[in-house]
């Protein structure tokens, strides 16, 4: 049973991304949306923690939300998959369930 997790708050504001990554299992995908996209930036104070906890899971980010915040895709952490809304729908369809970390 693979789960798609969505996180919509910045890891610099709440613990939900780090908590989500600590709970996610291998085969799951963690999709960062809305302010959650800040968690996908390389070179931040939390990038190492995100990469370390995200070892067994797929990390993804919603590209329109990155663009809305002026974050260049080139500044993403290695291995983070960038998806559009159609890609978000595909992730929801290909995982068995969705858990929103609100």
């Amino acid at each position, binding site marked *: 049973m693979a789960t798609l997790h969505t996180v919509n708050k910045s890891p610099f504001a709440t613990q939900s991304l780090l908590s989500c990554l600590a709970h996610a299992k291998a085969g799951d995908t963690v999709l960062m949306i809305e302010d959650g996209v800040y968690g996908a930036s390389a070179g931040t104070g939390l990038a190492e923690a995100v990469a370390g906890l995200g070892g067994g899971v797929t990390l993804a980010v919603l590209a329109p939300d990155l663009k809305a915040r002026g974050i260049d895709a080139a500044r993403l952490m290695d291995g983070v998959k960038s998806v559009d809304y159609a890609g978000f729908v595909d992730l929801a369809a290909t995982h068995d369930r969705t858990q*929103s970390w609100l």
Partner: protein
Amino acid sequence: MKFGIVVNEGPYTHQASDTAYNFAKAALAGGHDISRVFFYHDGVNVGTRLSIPPQDDRQIQEQWTALAKEHDLDLVICIAAAQRRGLLDENEATRQGKDANNIADGFRISGLGQLIEMGIQADRTVTFGD
């Protein structure tokens, strides 16, 4: 695939009702069905027809109404959350002795049973909120 969508955050708060709308639009464009959209907590405020956003801002209620019309979507507003926040349809306004109603086209007021039913009928339920 059938998607159920829950919107828990009010419009113009952060981004949840926008993300939910864009997700719904993309799902429909991808050939999926949306069995229902359930507006809960502050999300019920999306369904007022009296909101007047600036012209160059996103028209959240109108977008949902148009999408519902185009795809025959079932947009359900939670009754208990709606009554707390002053959102009434014609029936409820009469029943509660109020002098007006404000629900927008394409939305209907119903109960939590509709949320449970959506969870059973949909293949996936995706929640958007604060």
